[in-house]
């Protein structure tokens, strides 16, 4: 899980960099980072997000004006992916907490 969270954080930082510096100034190094993240997303099975990122990479490479829309869509997908992951993870921790509290209540009786 820690590895997936790190991938999410790195992708988020890349998107923030692109928003601040501008898509037209995206260089070879930054494209390499995005490509590596795309491969990582593919590997962990985040197919929808990987597809959105692939679209963004292609549009940046071809200097397409629609790269801005592609960035917004990829960012929205990343947000949903992060929320799904977070809510799933904390749900299991909350279940654990609820069970522990119920157990200590039983012991108190």
């Amino acid at each position, binding site marked *: *899980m820690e590895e997936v*969270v790190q991938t*999410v*954080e790195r992708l*988020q930082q890349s*998107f*923030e*960099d*692109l*928003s*601040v*510096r*501008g*898509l*037209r*100034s995206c260089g070879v190094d930054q494209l390499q980072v995005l490509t590596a993240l795309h491969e990582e997303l593919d590997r962990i099975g985040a197919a929808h997000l990987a597809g959105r990122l692939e679209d963004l990479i292609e549009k940046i490479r071809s200097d397409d*004006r629609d*790269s*801005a*829309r592609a*960035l*917004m869509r990829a*960012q*929205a*997908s990343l*947000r*949903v992916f*992060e*929320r*799904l*992951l*977070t*809510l799933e*993870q*904390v*749900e299991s*921790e*909350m*279940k*654990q*907490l*609820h069970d*522990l*509290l119920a157990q*200590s209540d039983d012991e108190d009786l």
Partner: protein
Amino acid sequence: MKISQVDQQKLAPLLEELSKAIEELLLTGLTTASDSTRQTLNVSFQEASRLGLLRLGNTLRVACEELTRYTKNQEDFSRQRFSFFLNRSWLICRGLAIALKEGNDAEFERLSWTPSVTPVGQLELICLGVSKKLVPSAFCAFDFRLRVLSPNAANIPVGQKLVWSYIKPMKADTLVPAESFLHLSQKQKFKPIDFMSGRKIVATDAAVTVEKSGTARLNLLEKSTITLGDKFVDWANYTSSWDPLVALHRLQSHPPGPLDLDIEMQEEIVLQGWKIDLPVEDGKDVKHTYPITYKNVVFRGVVPKGADGAELDDTLHKLLTAKIPPPMFGLLHYERCRLTLQPLSIFGGNGPEYMNISDKHIDPTVILKLLKF
């Protein structure tokens, strides 16, 4: 708000122009953003608010504030905040434009959602905790976490959680502690610091709004008044241990979406029998976090950077040596797969000790200076 309630002739081109301006900004980047792009964003924010699209207006406002911070080379510019709110603005804008084009009232209403306002005659309240947010050269904000104490004409249930927000702008040369603003008299004949007196608070002729997240807010109007009642002694009623079951049910029934904020599912909680460990470095957005363990589950006790977190950091540091830590009231939210806790108060024998607020004496001349400000 329904489609028939807006001026469609004005709204359609506004949304089109706004999404184009955001896309142009993303193509060029902030350094070379043209004046016309900045101007379009600022005008759109005002126009969206004027047309009653408060959700879009508020989101754009934050993005514009960050853009201004970047332009002025202010060190508190946040890439994360800018990027998040720009994306949120684009999504709302595109969503509204599509809903408008398709005549989809339900979707338009969802995206332009504004809270309903309920007038309340009289409410008796207490304050359990206070958070502080300080953005240098911009504003300081305090959120007071309240509980309704007694039945009222508006049928707001006893025990209802309410938030009252107090926000004051701060100029770059304002060098006074944020707590000074709590001593300023308000139109409703009270000082915000009164909320922290440990006494009952009586709000008259106020209003309550319930947000999409379920958070209920107290709105003080021009005609509202605040008076203080007796000393409140029954704190134990509000410091019994928290049951995570309700939070768990909320988690299970919430469908995540791209417009969700990290604090969307925020919970007010009370921990008893907790343990605290030495702080750890935990990313660039916070000073550090204290691992707070409750029944073998670890929460990140976040301490904000800068003056925001100084008081909280001191209090948490002192609690490292406490043999039996007192009950702690705080806000729990879910961020990057972790349980994140914002501690607000601890409860000793005399009611709450507000962990984020300095109890240092405020020099009256400082308050006078603020009154001139």
